[in-house]
């Protein structure tokens, strides 16, 4: 069993993450990558986070996923700091012997990160406007679908 989670300012290489998961021998690797969309003259997206809590949260999320699905590996990367349209923000990858487990746990982890990991996004536009992104009710709803039976 292999879990890695990193929070970093620099870009990551999705191929490296995927290769590490493929090498676990499970046969099924699922991934999700989130990229900054360049809508409405977005200049930069700044990600704030709560470092001490992030690590704990990610470990709990990963342990929760391990308890629900027969996984061989989980890799989570979340970037913080200042990003631009087209930049990767987040990667979640899972490896399992079962494709259903890989796919479902990947969806679970990204839903969870969106709704429960302590990150906040601030958008800066070409005209100088800045605003913190509002949480979507949709994200809370998605996370509730996975409502945890674990304590």
């Amino acid at each position, binding site marked *: 069993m292999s879990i890695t989670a990193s929070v970093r300012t620099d870009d990551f290489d999705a191929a490296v993450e995927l290769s590490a998961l493929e090498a676990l021998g499970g046969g099924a690797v699922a991934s999700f990558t989130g990229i900054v969309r360049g809508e409405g003259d977005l200049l930069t997206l700044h990600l*704030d986070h709560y470092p001490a809590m992030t690590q*704990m949260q990610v470990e709990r999320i990963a342990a929760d996923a391990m308890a629900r699905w027969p996984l061989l590996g989980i890799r989570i990367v979340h970037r913080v700091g200042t990003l631009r349209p087209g930049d990767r923000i987040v990667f979640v990858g899972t490896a399992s012997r079962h494709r259903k487990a890989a796919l479902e746990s990947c969806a679970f982890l*990204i839903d969870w990160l*969106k709704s429960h990991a302590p*990150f*906040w996004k601030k958008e800066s536009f070409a005209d100088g406007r800045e605003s*913190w992104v*509002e*949480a979507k009710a949709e994200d809370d709803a998605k996370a509730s679908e996975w409502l945890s039976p674990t304590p």
Partner: protein
Amino acid sequence: MAGLDILYFAWVRDGIGRDGERIDTPARDTSIAALIESLAARGGGYAQALGQPTRLRAALDQRFVPLDTVIGDARELALFPPVTGG
């Protein structure tokens, strides 16, 4: 008296103008909501950032908790808007 470390994130920090502070440990049975109210009563940026508790979320010793949670022996309280990661 260890005190209670309060951390502010996102627009809560922007409004208050600082990323955290240490306050004297409140009474054990003080709720987070009550503490928010007393901080907001300072006025200025505090009133602006903390005046609408329904817009706030909290973590006590790095765990998300409802605002009616009592602070008890916690050492670190974080106040912030709903998260928007991923």
